[in-house]
């Protein structure tokens, strides 16, 4: 081959590489959006859950028990604004407290109870969708070429959000054809 042929080949390869890089950049961009949207959704639901827990503790201490109401209020406040910055831990503690509430809350309006139940479900959904978005981003960024070309530039690597929501409604129960807690 002449040097001209080599040059042409190199040019074609370079063009392909550029096209591929542009396309991958677009993917990374879209994934960043998706992670951001999923995080917003999760954050909204977590805030909502903390708000409902506070409402429950403030207005119906008799139904949940005075001690428990104090804890619930404190945990909810901590979940909204974690003292040590560990949001996952704070949400876990609040989640556990809410799970341990007695199933029948006498005197608490049904609307608040169903709101709380619905929000708990949505926390589970939003968390899974957020982690899914994070997983897709990490998978793409682990590829050799994007890593080599540093296509992600200054984008921070998103983190998984892991809390124990133990949500039978989301992962499926024996009743809905899944394993509990899987």
């Amino acid at each position, binding site marked *: 081959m002449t040097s001209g042929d080599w040059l042409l080949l190199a040019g074609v390869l370079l063009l392909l590489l550029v096209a591929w890089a542009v396309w991958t950049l677009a993917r990374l961009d879209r994934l960043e959006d998706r992670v951001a949207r999923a995080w917003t*959704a999760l954050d*909204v639901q977590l805030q909502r859950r903390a708000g409902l827990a506070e409402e429950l503790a403030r207005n119906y201490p008799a139904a949940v028990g005075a001690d428990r109401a104090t804890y619930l209020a404190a945990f909810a406040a901590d979940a909204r604004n974690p003292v040590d910055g560990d949001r996952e831990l704070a949400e876990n503690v609040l989640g556990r407290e809410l799970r341990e509430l007695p199933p029948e809350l006498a005197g608490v309006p049904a609307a608040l109870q169903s709101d709380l139940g*619905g929000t708990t479900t949505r926390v589970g959904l939003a968390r*899974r969708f957020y982690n899914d*978005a994070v997983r*897709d981003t990490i998978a*793409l960024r682990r590829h050799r070429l994007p890593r080599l070309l540093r296509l992600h530039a200054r984008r921070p690597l998103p983190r998984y959000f892991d809390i124990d929501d133990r949500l039978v409604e989301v992962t*499926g129960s*024996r009743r809905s054809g*899944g394993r509990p807690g899987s």
Partner: protein
Amino acid sequence: MRIGLVCPYQWDIPGGVQYHVRDLAETLRGLGHHVEILTPAEREESLPGEWVTFAGRTVPIPYNGSMASLQFGPVSAARVRRWLRDGHFDVVHVHEPAPPSVSLLVCMIAKGPIVATFHAATTRSKWLAAWAPVVSPWMERISGRIAVSDFARRVQVEHLGGDAVIIPNGVHVDAFAAGPSLPGYTRGADGPTIGFLGRYAEPRKGLPVLVEAMRTVVRQHPGARLLIAGRGDPADVRELIGEDLRPHVVLLGEISEADKGAFLRSVDVYCAPNLLGESFGVVLIEALAAGAPIVASDLDAFARVLEAGTAGVLVPRGDAAALGQALADLLADPGRRAELTVRGAEVAAAYDWQVLARRILAVYETVVPPEGGVVTAGEDDEYPAVAPTRSALRRWVQR
């Protein structure tokens, strides 16, 4: 909420995914939402109305023992684009998006929140393993993934590298729970009957095992009859039945959706002797909703629906003697049958579309951004389009 549902299989051919989409759409409309469907069909005229949009025809490809329908091309892409632009949906919900179908096209073209439901449960598939990396750039646009069963979720986790929330297939429980019986086969009044529903010729449905088991049943219940409903050549079954069982078997042929309820309300016991992988078993839930006690083979999917045997009797698959004995015992024990009917209604209630549609709505609400916004076709999407008609093509060129 404005919802766009996408069904990748031809609307006028019976199938689980088609029924799923149809029932979900009906239920969501009943809850006051605006729902439109985009689907291929064999004949455009067969689509039921305004709210179902024709996406073209598909090319059937034999795959994994059944038919997969492929649909890919610039004309289909133009249809998808127009549907998305005209629909102004808050969310688009595609079904089975991994194969090259109209669902995948929607994933490629749509801009905005996409929810996907995965139905298939084949965990070991070389085809899927090779295909998954090819489609991952478009799969990663899906904001919320739903699997209809634990098995379907496993496909997600193992092949497509994602997670999914489980929301099972649904049943219109009320439609099965109450209604007429088949004339001459009233439950509890017209002699013991055992029901079987499925294509005769498909060996994995296990009809030969059930026929063999009937010999045991008939010895103990001389008046027992087996009612067989489903598509197929009656000659095949007659051969299978033989002289001795002929008076005990009734072939009903193919029955309509409406008659299916009546059939399930009529039988004293419903039997699902399947030998091989069913991913879900909607028919079991329909039978539970219709109050029929069930004897089923111990497939994983069936054991899940029947709650490990508390909501129905499970027998080892392919064991005609055990199946026959289980059927005969259940026919002899009205108390146990009544118990199973009560338990079955409780189990079926969790699969009612009214319940499941609300869970699916919760998924939509989670992926739709709080400030709103609509799904549309991207201006810069990566799929070439050829408009379906010449005049539209001219308009497109002029643009």
